[in-house]
């Protein structure tokens, strides 16, 4: 859509590209790099201002486990679940659920991006311990 900003007509639109992508080497995340900036952003930019769209940059499928925790439900009705911060080259961090894999999670160890679903059923990502693709 076109909107007035400071009396100037500019284009404002919502990016349609997904934040995850299946590739031959597994699921990867899609970060963005805004025009004129070096650093990557994940989650990717949601809105594009004016005509210069951010560049999509694939990150993963393997990253380094920066930190994680195991969350326990207060009532004990639900099983414990893990969440993690994962660092990807070339310098971007993503947060998401962490799944058991080849062994227990180890800080600074490898994790892989894998398909997962959000609680509302939407297609999303998680991290699985280890660097090998799930069998």
């Amino acid at each position, binding site marked *: 859509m076109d909107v007035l900003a400071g009396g100037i007509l500019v284009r404002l639109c919502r990016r349609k590209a997904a934040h995850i992508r299946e590739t031959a080497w597994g699921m990867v995340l899609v970060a963005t790099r805004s025009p004129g900036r070096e*650093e*990557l*952003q*994940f*989650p990717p930019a949601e809105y594009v201002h004016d005509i210069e769209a951010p560049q999509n940059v694939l990150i993963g499928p393997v990253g380094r486990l*920066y*930190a*994680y*925790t*195991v*969350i*326990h439900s*207060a009532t004990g009705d639900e099983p414990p*679940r893990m*969440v*993690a*911060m994962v*660092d990807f080259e070339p*310098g*971007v*961090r993503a*947060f*998401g*659920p962490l799944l058991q894999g080849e062994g227990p999670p180890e*800080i*600074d160890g490898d994790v892989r991006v894998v398909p997962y679903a*959000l*609680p509302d059923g939407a297609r*999303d990502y998680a991290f699985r311990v280890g660097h090998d693709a799930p069998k």
Partner: protein
Amino acid sequence: MNEPRINGVGITDFGRFPELSGEALAQAAIRDALADAGIAIGEVQAYYCGSAIGALLTGQRALRELNTHGSAVYNIDNACASGATALNLALQALKAGQHDTVVVFGVDHESSLVAGPQDLKQGDWNERRGMDAPALHAMRAMRYMRDHGLTAATLADVAVKNRRHGVLNPIALLCQQATREEVLAAPLVAEPLTLLQCCPSGADGAAALVLTTQPGKGSAAPIRLLASVVLSGVFDTGPVDITRAELSARAARMAYEQSGLGPNELGLVELCDAFTISELLYCEALGLCGPGEAGGLLDSGATALGGRVPVNPSGGLLAKGHLPGATGVAQVVEICQQLQGRAGQRQVEGARIGLAQVAGGFLWGLDEAACAIHILSV
């Protein structure tokens, strides 16, 4: 123009009062502060209200029955730093000559909300994927333990210390003393944090301050504000060090510069110990010790009552609960009472300078959203 000073403080009990409203608690704290300052409500020209989890117009709802004659009311939401941000704004107005006497108050009533961690923000990217406040701080603790060799026992000792302080504080109704073993054996919330390493949820309370450029009429010594800083987090989705508390460190540097003081000159500190790990990270951010040294500082006894620089002599958030609107104001109330020598059994002997730090509010891209630091002296 005279220098603005705090001439009166008021605070309610911090506990669970489902039969009371936040407005009623705020009124009690304001009346307490006005009486302490020795002034009538008609002398107040503006009110600055910190509240983060209530409904709209918290200030007006609290004040309408106090007959404030339509004085200006400012409602401030800045997450965990809401009350402290209200103080910062009030101070600016006094320095600008806009008013000469104002009331700052903070209030929240959590017992009327769903128990457990408060939502960060509906629809926040990380929150949709399982992030909450305990999880974020637990990850900070996991990384800190990995990087600096902190033990679970030392982490638990933060809760032991602050609960030991809290039982000396008559307003900390939710506080119970606990041993290291009890802290470690409590139910896990987010590993390595147990329930007794998280501030109690569902608390209610209010606190208030009278600031004025007029001569003091109260019985206690007026308190000077040597520094008042509010800053926000830097947007960064790169691999930042989450054990650094960058925002608080940046705010502390600015506060020390404003005051002309350094960390070695502090007599006491009230900081935002929403979780045990928070106290350790903020001790480092405030320069009380070097990176990775906060566990040793705690072990040395320096941050306990009777130590070199007592941290959270009130018991902190671990003892009182964390009300984002009220916490920052309550910290300043505690420091005023300490500097005035009226802190009872938890009195820090000879304290002349105190620092209050509060930070929080987590959104993706911001390690922490808001931080406020005040340095006070007699």
